């Protein structure tokens, strides 16, 4: 059964997708409190993601979660580039695995806290 991934869209990302044609693909979550892209991931790609990233798991909703933050960041970049929520965006992310793992190693030690 296919799995899903959600890419959250904060204000910066919402600005970045303006005029890209992707606006109508934005999902409203929690009564519109959160915006996200939802990608359907094939079984084959799900397995590849889970095998590549030790922390990755499938949650109770059937979503792949606990991937490195860099994975989500690069997934958003590739969605913006390919203007697609299809498999080409995921393939482009998987092609950048070395880069993601390098960033993930740094992110596992330190993450800057947000100013609130």
């Amino acid at each position, binding site marked *: 059964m296919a799995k899903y991934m*959600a890419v*959250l869209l*904060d204000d910066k990302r919402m600005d970045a997708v303006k005029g890209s044609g992707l606006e109508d693909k934005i999902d409203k*979550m*929690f*009564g519109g*409190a*959160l915006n996200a892209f939802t990608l359907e991931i094939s079984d084959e790609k799900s397995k590849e993601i889970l095998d590549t990233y030790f*922390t990755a*798991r499938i*949650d*109770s*909703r059937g*979503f792949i*979660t*606990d*991937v490195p*933050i860099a994975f*989500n960041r690069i997934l958003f970049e590739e969605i913006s580039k390919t203007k697609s929520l299809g498999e080409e965006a995921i393939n482009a992310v998987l092609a950048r695995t070395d880069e993601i793992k390098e960033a993930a190693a740094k992110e*596992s*030690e*330190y*993450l*800057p*806290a*947000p100013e*609130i």
Partner: protein
Amino acid sequence: MLMIETPPPHGGRLVERVVRDPEMGKKLAKKCDAAYDIKPTLSDGVPIRNVYREIMSICYGFFSPVEGSMKKAEVERILKERRLLNDWIFPYPLVFDITEEELKDLGVTAGDKLLLRLKGKPFATLDIEEIWRIDNPEELAHKTFGTPEDNPEVVKEAFNAKMPGWVIYKSLNPVVLAGKYTIINEPKFLSPFDRFWFPPRKSREEYAKRGWRTVINHQTRNVPHIGHEFLMKDAAYTGDLEPCHGIQVNAIIGVKRAGDYPDEAIIEGHEAVNLGGYIKPERHLVTFTLWDMRYGNPLESMLHGIIRQNMGCTHHMFGRDHAAVGEYYDMWATQILWGKGIPSFGFPAPITDVPYGLKIRPQNMKEFWYCPVCNEIAYSECCGHTKEKQKFSGSFIRGMVAEGIFPPKVIFRPEVYKVIVKWWKEFGYPFCNAKYVTEKEQRLEVDLPDMNI
């Protein structure tokens, strides 16, 4: 009789093995034949357990009627029937394990008294009654948590190195010193843990002081999101002729898996729920137990029932995937144990309905989700908008936190999120990672007074 009263401790009496008179503590320390410095159990160089937490929880009565490190016959009976030698039910082996080299250096035998030091200072004694060996720790780990073949009712996948509890048991040293522990130099809790320390005798006194006859416990290893808050509030509508008087949060404090929140954020996050008035402080008590989580779902829930019954709770809420990691157990395994029993673990009936079982009452709950149609946090057994529902996924929320996205109020109370950020700034990371766990094991949750012997 409709009115429910405070249950007795598991085993009939609260274990309390803490010497509070320093002079008496010194006398006991001087009688010891050898001394041992407690250190964490490591896996790949990262701490996964510290036996000091087990000693604390045993000596302050959280694990009553257990009084010490278990003998071989007791461990074997637990693995077979989940019962202590005195017949009372208990889920896990608890042992004081050392290496062969350490045994040689100590030179102790059965009948000797061992002084246990923590942070370089006298902490406790172990009256050695038996020395035995673990022949095959991996087999012990499998037997501890079950296997799909032996426990098909609830075990779905064989346990492996991704399961922290399994790794704890697999990493045990081969020599077990079995016997009773006694704390001879009472540790002092560091902030913020000090204000949440309610060992069983104190928690029972606190409930009485507050006029709480019925108390429902919420188990946590998480900073509370709104789904947790509604679980607490709604589960508490059980009780007897009125809803439960008190809602107790009992956080498990100790080594956790990478990606869980730091202990400090967990405990203060729950406090923020009552400081923010979402559950008023008069009805809400945040407490903790020291324990390095085994993530053993139904077995962990049995331990949770024992702890909270010993603390004096009348009820315990249980949800989906209780104290679980991965998909090793059925997601409702805990509710199966409390609802009808798990014969392969030795319980053909619920663990409240077997001889020498528990008296605390389970409140098995399904799920809470956000429903955009109802425009509220809805209970899955009430809300009919199953297509529109949006579930609270802990890992999804962790991802949102890690990306620095300010969570909406429908996910986290702002006061709770501020606590996450407070400790994020302190540790440079919002979750447990190797650095946090390693530094925490040096710092621990306690300091010890000087004791010159």
